[in-house]
């Protein structure tokens, strides 16, 4: 395991370093698919310059990252050269994948134990669906490969997008959750929320996971249930409070609140990106804006409720679903966000036999990724196409993502169904039955 992993790391770092040194880096850093107004390195540099001049970095509507990020870079840039930064970004990617390696191992060990306890409850023919340790052995390596060699991650890393940092925080949150460390989990979740608000929806799966681990029943009438929720929320909100106050004391003003969170929630920057917001809000009459803003933003948060109810037994899968929903519906998505949840796919490789549209969806995702730069070129440089062309591809890309996620969701539910009811279902008259999703 160690040898291929080392090889993988070397390859990943080499690709990044080579791209970084080439003239492509500047081009990539300008791509709207790769950097958003929040995560663009160019804007961070601008913020740093303003900070050096003693001006609030949030004056001037360019910089939208959080105060902690800018102070972190302020510190780093002071002590090392800019070139060093590249390694920070590279290393971040690597560290994320390392954590993924661990965590992808964990849920299945847990599941296996659970299975050992309840083995006699399952029908015999569903044994085919149980993953053997041999199959699982390579999953972490595949996860690392999916993340490190994913072109999306590479692009986002070469562009020095701070999206890499957000992903790292989310990965740390995931790791500490899987390891069962409640306090760390709450702290990292709070950091992720502090960075981009949306991860707040991950509260639900984290709490469900801990409850499952500590054998606390999910029951509204039980005190232990409420007591745990209060505990977790206290840790979460407490650290959030600390972070916000820390930012205030660092900066000396509340400027950053409207500039970061207001910017995320009210979407004033309509630069095209791979998300759904820009075109709608560019076309919309001003007096409908607030209403549709609410509709679009609720989209991100709302799915937490039905998904948590349906997947309360499977919090790890719920985290995957939530990450996907966030990266599809958030206001300034980039390919870096997409890469984060794509890295989970090898973890669900046991669902492949139940996937229905994977071929179609991967073809569409592939074609869309190639068409983004082409249509951008036609629109912006050649001037012969227009924004509708680009938005059509954005829409298709997001539809494909939604299909992908819902396909995995369906496959997961179907596998659970087969686990309890047997793999080869029979109708009452003895003929083979098929499951239909309506």
């Amino acid at each position: 395991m160690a040898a291929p992993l080392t090889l993988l790391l070397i390859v990943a770092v080499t690709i990044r370093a080579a791209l970084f040194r080439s003239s492509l880096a500047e081009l990539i850093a300008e791509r709207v698919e790769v950097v958003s107004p929040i995560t663009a390195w160019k804007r961070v540099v601008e913020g740093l310059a303003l900070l050096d001049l003693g001006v609030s970095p949030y004056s001037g509507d360019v910089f939208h990252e959080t105060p902690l990020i800018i102070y972190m870079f302020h510190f780093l840039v002071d002590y090392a050269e800019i070139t060093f930064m590249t390694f920070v970004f590279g290393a971040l990617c690597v560290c994320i994948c390392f954590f993924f390696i661990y965590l992808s191992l964990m849920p299945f060990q847990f599941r296996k134990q659970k299975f050992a306890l309840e083995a006699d409850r399952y029908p015999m023919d569903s044994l085919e669906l149980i993953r053997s340790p041999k199959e699982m052995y390579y999953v972490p390596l595949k996860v690392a490969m999916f993340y490190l060699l994913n072109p999306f991650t590479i692009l986002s890393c070469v562009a020095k997008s701070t999206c890499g940092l957000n992903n790292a925080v989310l990965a740390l949150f995931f790791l500490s959750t899987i390891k069962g460390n409640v306090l760390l989990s709450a702290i990292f979740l709070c950091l992720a929320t502090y960075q981009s608000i949306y991860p707040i929806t991950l509260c639900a799966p984290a709490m469900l996971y801990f409850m499952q681990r500590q054998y606390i029943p999910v029951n509204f009438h039980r005190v232990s249930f409420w007591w745990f929720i209060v505990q977790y929320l206290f840790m979460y909100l407490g650290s959030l409070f600390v972070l916000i106050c820390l930012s205030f004391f660092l900066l000396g003003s509340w400027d950053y609140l409207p500039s970061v969170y207001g910017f995320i929630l009210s979407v004033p920057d309509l630069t095209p990106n791979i998300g759904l917001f820009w075109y709608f809000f560019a076309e919309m009459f001003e007096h409908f804006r607030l209403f549709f803003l609410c509709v679009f933003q609720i989209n991100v948060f709302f799915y937490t409720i039905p998904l948590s109810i349906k997947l309360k037994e499977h919090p790890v899968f719920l985290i995957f679903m939530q990450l996907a929903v966030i990266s599809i519906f958030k206001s300034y998505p980039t390919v870096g966000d997409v890469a984060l949840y794509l890295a989970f796919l090898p973890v669900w490789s046991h669902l492949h036999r139940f996937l229905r549209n994977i071929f179609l969806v991967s073809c569409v995702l592939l074609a869309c990724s190639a068409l983004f730069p082409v249509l951008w070129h036609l629109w912006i440089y050649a001037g012969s196409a227009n924004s509708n062309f680009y938005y059509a591809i954005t829409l298709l890309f997001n539809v494909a993502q939604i299909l992908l996620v819902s396909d995995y969701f369906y496959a997961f539910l179907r596998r659970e169904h087969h686990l309890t009811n047997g793999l080869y279902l029979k109708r009452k008259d003895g003929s083979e039955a098929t499951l239909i999703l309506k």
Partner: protein
Amino acid sequence: MGLLSDPNRRRALISMLTRLNAPICVVCYFAGVAWFMGLAFEPFTLRTYMSENAMGSTMVEERFPAGERALATGREFAAHKKKVGGMPVDWLVKNMQDRGLEVFTQSFSRTLPFPDENKERYIVKGTNVYGILRAPRAPRTEALVLSAPCSPGDNNNQAVGLLLGLAQYFRNQIYWAKDIIFLVNEHDLIGMQAWLEGYHHTNTTGMSWSPLQGRGGSIQAALSLELSSDVITSLDLVLEGLNGQLPNLDLANLFYAFCQKIGVLCTIQGKLQRNDWDSVSGYNHAVQTMMLMVMKQASGRPWGDHGLFLRYHIEAATIKGVNSFRQYKTDATTIGRLLEGMYRKLNNLLERLHQSYFFYLMPSLSHFVSIGYYMPAFGLLAVILLLRALDLWVQLNTPPSTTEDGVADIDQVRHTPGVLSVLTPLVISHLTGVALYALPIRFQETAVEHFPVSETEAVVLTAIAIYTAGLALPHNTHRYYIVCVCGTEQGWRVLKLVAVLYLAVLLGCTALINFSLGFILALTLVPLAAFVTPHVPKVLSAFILVILSPACTLLFSVFFFQELQDMPVSFQDGWLLYLSVISQGILDHSLYGSLVYPLIALLVYPCWLLFWNILFWK
């Protein structure tokens, strides 16, 4: 969504698609070709119409009187050109100043990567002269360009004369709301490139030029004039620009409308318009015109001096005067009037030309085919690739044999194709592509030292040699496959799936940027992608594969193009032409940034090599 979630209907559809895969593919191919050929049939095309309000409804009256004087100026220019042996800069500056323009010059120099044998140039040095007529009626934020090339020999003297004549006449009019820039560029496109880069402060090709001293507003439209005789019989409109980009259709409409109004014969691709669309010969004529446009667009090179303007969002076209043996002649005054009319209408523009189409083909000057009509032809070809990919996917997913220990079998089969067996040919063929792209220019000196060839020949022959050497690759790469011999049947399927999807995406993107190129490549590459497997007869298929490879496509295109222009060539001449076309392609890439050569070398050729690999899969 029923189709996506109902397993029974899905299964039915997929089984139908896999069972009837071959017939559907054949039908799609012929339907695509038929659709394309149908585009030239007049009832299926749209009549051109002026979309831009600012140019449509207003009336202008053309009064340009001084055609004869312009021709006299042209003759004077010719005399000075002959005396100086190049561009008579001082004479031009003085003449433009006399006409009341603000005159500036720009000098530029450029060393070509290797000598251009067609135009006989290697180290190019020249000067552009341009005069700006400041707009009296507006804040000078916008400009129009009229350019005429200063060509070697006796060409285009009349164009420069007419340009100066028009400058003098325009100077005395009061209605100009846009600056008008009169540009005389030396060394055709190289001079144009230098001027445009200087005007827009960009440097994309590493050329050296002196910065421009004077500027007008942002350029809205440009016309380039080519005129080599005192009287003409017809005017030809050239639209195709760099990378197959076309100007807004309204510019063509404007030209056509004025030709109709003034009564000048106008052509496109050198073909007159005919009214007998319902006869076979009429249809043939339209097909010829359209095919010429397709071939020119596919070549990706600028077919007139206007070609580089398009890169900067400037709608531009070249107007060429043709003097043939026809009886009816048009004099310079009339051409001057035509240009005057066009510039007055362009002067009325309130915003950039954007109302009409940017993606179109023209079977005649009065009819066009828009993107919505021609894309299905390409779509039908692309669908074949997707169908084949689906078929392969289904084959890959159905286990070959369900024996007693079925589970173990599936496991084995699923793991054997491995990443490595697909990655190796992918990487190797792309490296060959990189070699094809980079080596010819880099190794020209070495080649010239060791072989008795000129630099240009060296570049072209190296390119052909690398291309041919790539064919030997499968035999060598197969040594590395020994590790995974067991999965070979699945292995080529995976490789083919990757290759087919790769080709589909590649052709799709190409067709969006340059439809003609995408369609021509699809026409040849799609059938080979569809049929090639390791199990077809080797020698015959290898022959077909070579015939349908990008290089042979280019060779056929050269002959076909000559045929379309009614100038058939012998095989010997055709071959020489073919060599010069390759060298021009490489030059266009390094001089103007044309994308066709890198596209073919870095993407299309490696993709074709993948199919070659599949054929020789062991």
